[in-house]
């Protein structure tokens, strides 16, 4: 009992401990290797803006799509106790819709871009609802249900534009993908902040967090308290759909083109990993979105560190896997229990020593 209450009191940080330690270790490791690794400088970019640059900026910037997807994935994981593996493919569809509408307009105005985003958002929500329906109504395991879209998503993305890699060329979209004139912070980073803010507002002004956790922890009890598990699960997939459309649009704007085969390729596994590193149970239930966002930055920092160490790109995944195995094992309940046992023994030992002295 005392252990449990202790945990509740420490609750503030508990779950975020692992990703924070991971980030701390990566920072220390990099500083030892290269003291100037995290230095931030300002420089003029090729459109004449003064912008921030450096490894830290590219880490935070590069993790944007991952962080946004991880937010939505956290919700799906919490409600359904399973993961959506189709986010990469769905983002390719969303990106293709975005490109299609931008290319259809002769002069690309702010209105066009807004319309394009709304359209791709609607499409992504629709596909999210499709996944959600399979999971919530037909009770198919999330991974199996989303395998369908994972398999066919990139083909659908190809059909939307009918070409291999259509490009978009507009000042507005490139501002979304890189920098807004006069703002030194990369736009994707700002979008991540906006998304995080939106999530916290939703949690503040709706009961989504309580209901999602209830459904994830005990679906039967949630139902008998008048919550519709079906609706909550469906909702989580639709919200993930919004995240997918934002991530897809950023990805397209970054490159100025859509390549349906490579846009956000393999990001689904990194997304799930970010959720796990963030200390969220992949079996559903209690969750913290902030953990998943930190998890996304851990993954990106690891990748950039490996590249900076001149690890060949073919080997990066293997090294990444080693670090991730360590993180996941350290965060596992077995190690946690062992560790808390150790702490208790230490306290007991100290108490005994104090008694002896007294």
């Amino acid at each position, binding site marked *: *009992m005392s252990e*449990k*209450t202790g945990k*509740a009191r420490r*609750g503030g940080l508990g779950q975020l401990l692992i990703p924070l330690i991971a980030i701390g270790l990566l920072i220390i490791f990099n500083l030892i290797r290269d003291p100037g690794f995290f230095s931030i400088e300002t420089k003029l970019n090729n459109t004449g803006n003064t912008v921030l640059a450096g490894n830290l900026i590219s880490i935070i910037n590069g993790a944007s799509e991952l962080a946004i997807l991880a937010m939505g994935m956290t919700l799906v994981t919490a409600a359904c106790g399973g993961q959506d593996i189709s986010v990469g493919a769905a983002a390719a569809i969303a990106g293709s819709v975005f490109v299609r509408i931008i290319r259809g307009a002769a002069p690309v105005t702010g209105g066009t871009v807004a319309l394009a985003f709304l359209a791709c958002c609607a499409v992504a929500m629709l596909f999210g609802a499709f996944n959600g329906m399979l999971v919530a109504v037909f009770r198919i395991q999330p991974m199996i249900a989303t395998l369908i879209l994972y398999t066919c998503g990139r083909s659908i993305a190809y059909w939307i534009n009918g070409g291999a890699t259509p490009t978009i060329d507009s000042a507005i979209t490139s501002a979304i993908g890189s920098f807004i004139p006069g703002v030194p912070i990369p736009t994707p980073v700002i979008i991540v902040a906006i998304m995080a803010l939106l999530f916290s507002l939703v949690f*503040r*002004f*709706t*009961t*989504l967090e*309580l*209901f999602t*956790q*209830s459904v994830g*922890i*005990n679906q*039967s*009890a*949630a*139902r*008998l*308290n*008048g*919550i*519709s598990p079906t609706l909550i699960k469906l909702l989580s997939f639709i919200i993930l759909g919004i995240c997918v459309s934002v991530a897809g649009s950023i990805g397209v704007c970054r490159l100025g083109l859509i390549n349906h085969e490579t846009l956000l390729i393999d990001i689904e596994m990194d997304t799930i990993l970010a959720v796990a590193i963030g200390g969220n149970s992949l079996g559903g*239930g*209690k969750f913290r979105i902030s953990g998943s966002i930190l998890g996304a930055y851990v993954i990106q920092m690891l990748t950039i560190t490996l590249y900076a160490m001149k690890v060949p790109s073919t080997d990066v995944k293997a090294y990444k896997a080693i670090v991730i195995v360590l993180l996941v094992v350290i965060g596992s309940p077995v190690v946690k229990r062992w560790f808390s046992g150790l702490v208790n023994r230490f306290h007991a030992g100290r108490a005994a020593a104090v008694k002896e002295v007294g």
Partner: protein
Amino acid sequence: MPNETVLTMRGICKQFPGVRALHNVDFSLRKGEIHALMGENGAGKSTLIKVLTGVYGKDAGSIHLDGVEGEANIHSPQDAQNIGIATVYQEITLCPNLTVAENMYIGRGASFLVRRKEYEKKAGQILENLGIPARPRQQLASCSLAVQQMVAIARAVDMQCKVLILDEPTSSLDDKEVQMLFSLMRDLKARGVGIIFVTHFLEQVYEVCDRITVLRNGELVGAYRIEELPQVQLVAKMMGKDLDELNSMNAFERWNRTDGPVVYEARQLSSSESRPFDFQIHRGEVNGFTGLLGSGRSESVRAIFGADHVTGGQVKVDGKPVRITRPIEAMKHGIGYLPEDRKRDGIIADLSVRENIILALQVMKGFFRPLSRAEAEKFADEYIQALNIKTASKDTPIGSLSGGNQQKVILARWLLTHPDYLILDEPTRGIDVGTKLEIQKLVLKLAEDNVSITFISSEIEEMLRTCSRLIVMRDRNIVGELTGDDLTQTRVMQTIAGGEAS
């Protein structure tokens, strides 16, 4: 032949951490006999079965089986099977995606080769012999539940079993299917198989069984021939009450209010789990559903709350016709429901006491109107104090509280919604005596405040102390309604047992 003993268990003891599950229990089974093993929940029936089938090891005692030299060594279900003890469980443990014949022969014999033709031929013969309406090559899933049950039995029979254990085989069967199963049981009996029949349905016991062994609190009450033990006495033995003792017990002064307006009324209400029934409750009335476990009492109140799929009937709340097919609709009409299985249906284990308390109110307020943290804390504090909930703090996960305190949190959850009609299904199960009394007092206090309450408990005394009207159920039907002077243990048991006892 009929009096030859096939199985003898003597002095069986089994201890679990903190619980004495079986203490010095004797049991014997004859050839060609159907023997009912009876007892209330937690009496030790399943533990005894599991000791016999090698799922649990026994702490003391001996088991002798006809044809086995000395003491039978049963250390695993496989051992039990090998010496001729076969079990058919309540849930079908066969593979629905395989054929009937494959199911009968899977995992048997030393050979890895599947001799399909031979198996199908043998299976066909057995099925025909036993009169089971299934074909060997039919996929098991395409058979009805009763037939699947019978295939499981056929599998056991073909393994040359001497003892066949049927653990609640009829609980998911309809009347016709039960009759099919019974004729199969009688057939096996004629072939000399000893059958142990575990069930909650009293009538079924008297229909097919020859003898009854009654357990209570892990101890043997006795073994009786069926003629010796009328139903009402069986019920008394299961509950551990002497009939005379019961008769002499005085009725308490009872809260009796059936003069107020009818708050809730159902006509021919039915759900996927319950048969159609009529029911009504007045304002400030405390009534109860009673009956043995499996009699349908929980299923009936679940139908009232819309917890199961409601299939028919008319419902009126405060005299106005309404539709209640989902919990949220019941809640909106002022009905609260504390479920029977606290762990499975009540608590959200990882969430805090505070979140668990406000949950139902929050759902009723709606998705876009969350309670502020301050409001939630105020409610939590209020009810932690009012119900004397022992918790380290309101942020403690409910899962780490004791059972009684968890139950109080769930109770607080519903009180917070200020229901007009509160259904409490086994609110006192598995909690200490002090808390039990607190909850009973609370029920009466709520009734004084004009809340209507349906109270269900396995302990008859508790219901007699709190309820002014008892609805008695047997085999999923309402068989009686007791009020006033009829509210005595004897009358309740007579009604449960059916028929008048002297």
